[in-house]
């Protein structure tokens, strides 16, 4: 038992952090800089990070969930406006079904963003959403189609981007009645175990994203509290402010510790166990991130409530990552069902 990152993982974290800081947005205005965004997307593609969960040739992924979680965390730390979790989850799904990954594809989610969209014939429960997709150009999303005891994959075309809460990740709508395009030669149906393992990865990556959001926004907020003066002294010298930030640091550390488990477990634990670990991590990280981001808004004072202050970029990113694969309330219901049995009547 040793939960430390390997030297290679630590190096990956360092390199990815450097890249994300260099090419990620430094201000809210930077979000409109398409040239920068293009360079960032290219750098992420060139680094091979979108292929981390592709088939290594043996059916196993090229890299473990730990590497994927490190990248997710570090990108979120810089609120990097580049697709990562979406395409990586799609590639993971494709690998499990034994089909070649479709470049740039993501997974489709039902409107509650909790389960991947399941359809038959055409998209009937529309709209469904393709999350963390490219913001421009054509986009395709995997959809699950019931087939006997399991599911097979289909592809749908995404529609125009819609303005979601998150300013850093695009959401593409899949319109009602969208045709289901077959995928080439699926080698097998997806089972319940496949879906559990895949959801575990989704929970691990969205948790890691929330950890990154907390790291980034807390760093920015501590720096602000050191520099912003009132009554002639930095506001960070006031205990009322210090205690909010100290609590935020603890929440970040706890969420990070919990998130390591499903990130590792997605490849090492039984699927049901990995998903349970993901629910724990995500429920904790979601509540933690909400508090930490709200603290950041508060400590930034009036400016923290303005559009041009980047704090809301973190908060908005946390809102999407929280909802995606289930927010804390939904996950607690799932945990209760799994551990306590079904509720009867009164609840």
């Amino acid at each position, binding site marked *: 038992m040793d939960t*430390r990152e390997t030297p290679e993982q630590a190096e990956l974290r360092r390199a990815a952090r450097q890249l994300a800081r260099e090419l990620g947005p430094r201000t809210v205005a930077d979000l409109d800089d398409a040239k920068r965004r293009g360079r960032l997307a290219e750098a992420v593609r060139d680094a091979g990070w979108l292929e981390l969960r592709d088939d290594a040739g043996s059916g196993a992924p090229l890299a473990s969930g*730990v590497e994927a979680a490190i990248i997710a965390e570090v990108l979120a730390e810089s609120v990097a406006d580049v697709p990562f979790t979406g395409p990586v989850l799609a590639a993971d799904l494709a690998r499990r079904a034994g089909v070649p990954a479709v470049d740039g594809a993501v997974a489709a989610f039902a409107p509650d963003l909790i389960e991947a969209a399941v359809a038959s014939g055409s998209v009937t429960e529309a709209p469904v959403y393709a999350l963390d997709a490219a913001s421009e150009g054509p986009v395709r999303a995997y959809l699950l189609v019931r087939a006997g005891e399991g599911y097979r994959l289909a592809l749908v075309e995404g529609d125009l981007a819609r303005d979601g809460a998150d300013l850093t990740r695009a959401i593409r709508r899949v319109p009602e009645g969208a045709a289901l395009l077959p995928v080439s030669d699926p080698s097998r149906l997806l089972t319940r175990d496949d879906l559990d393992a895949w959801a575990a990865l989704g929970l691990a990556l969205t948790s890691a994203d929330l950890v990154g959001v907390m790291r980034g926004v807390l760093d920015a907020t501590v720096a602000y509290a050191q520099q912003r003066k009132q009554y002639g002294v930095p506001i*960070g010298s006031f205990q009322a402010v210090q205690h909010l930030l*100290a609590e935020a640091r603890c929440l970040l550390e706890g969420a990070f510790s*919990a998130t390591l488990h499903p990130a590792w477990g997605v490849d*090492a634990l039984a699927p049901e166990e990995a998903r349970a670990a993901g629910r724990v991590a995500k429920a904790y990280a979601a509540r933690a991130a909400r508090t930490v981001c709200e603290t950041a808004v508060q400590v930034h004072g009036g400016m923290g409530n303005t559009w041009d202050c980047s704090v809301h970029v973190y908060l908005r990113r946390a809102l999407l990552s929280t909802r995606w694969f289930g927010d804390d309330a939904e996950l607690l219901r799932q945990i209760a069902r799994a551990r306590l049995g*079904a509720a009867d009547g009164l609840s």
Partner: protein
Amino acid sequence: MDFRDSPAEAAFRTRLRAWIAGNNPGLPVSSTDDAYWARQAEWHTALYDAGFFGLSWPARFGGHALPPVFDVILDEELAHAGAPPRPSLGYLVQGITTHGSEAVQQRFLPGLISGRERWCQGFSEPDAGSDLAALRTSAVRDGGAWVIHGHKIWTSYSDDADWCFLLARTDPAVPRHKGLSAFAVPMRQPGVEQHPLRMINGITKEFGQVVFDGARVAAENMIGAPGEGWRIAMTIVSHEREPGEVGYVARYSKTVGDLEKALRANPRAASDKREAVAWAHVQAEMLRLHVRRRLSERLDGIDHGPGGSVDKLLMTWVEQTVGAAALSVAGSRAVVDRDDVALKIYLYSRAQSVMGGTSQIQKNIIATRILGLPTA
């Protein structure tokens, strides 16, 4: 990164699990009942004699010199079996190994680790709580001994203790942090009076109170150098109530397990109870994983720095979440029966944000020493 047991860890876990199955004393959780404390010494020596205590401590003093993660396995297996947590002595061991002379280590560590000698800690005083450096207990040199006068409080289990790890003022002339020294004071002598305090949940062992009125301690029982007391105290408090040191994870997991059992038997339980227990499970799991992470990090070397304050605060939130869940599940039972276990667990949990350094002090430490915020 690997959360799995290594072959050696797995073998240890198997051996431990078998031993617990045959030796679980079935004591109540430590927070609710003096019956736990009445038999804690017995439990300590049983664990020790079976080779399951002091796992990461030096072998020459009776420990097993294993990597710190073996303590995680111990805590997890105790929780799994519903057995009592291991005795919380890690911070005293850290203090003595870090600051004590070879002679002091040889004299005191074997008895402390084996449980043959019982210890308490004498730091706080009625007028020196969070402001520990304000302490006034004095130690005055008298030939080959020091003579102690003063009033110590929150000296948990002091009425069972053979020794007190005492912090006293040996030099009133120097600035207050510099005039303190640490001692191993024998408790079974004239001049040591016990005045136990009753906690809000009714138990009397957790909150001790001792008056030293001319108690004597041999000069060779000083731990560290004269005037080193503050530094020693800081080492100890950085580990005190650190979840990896005190083994409370086992207590929380056991309580959550009991609450889950109660709700599994009652599918009509209201959704707020189910949610409270699910959240307690999330919190307890987070702490279990956090301890795994922190003890894994110790493979790079132990750190006596401010990180323990983060751990303490996380542990406090877990304890109070679990306490609130117990109260929620109990419902009316907890208010119609003064001896209700859930009521006791809940009331005990409120002390966690005070004992071992208040949450406010931990936040001060995190803000200034970890986040680097300026002091006012």
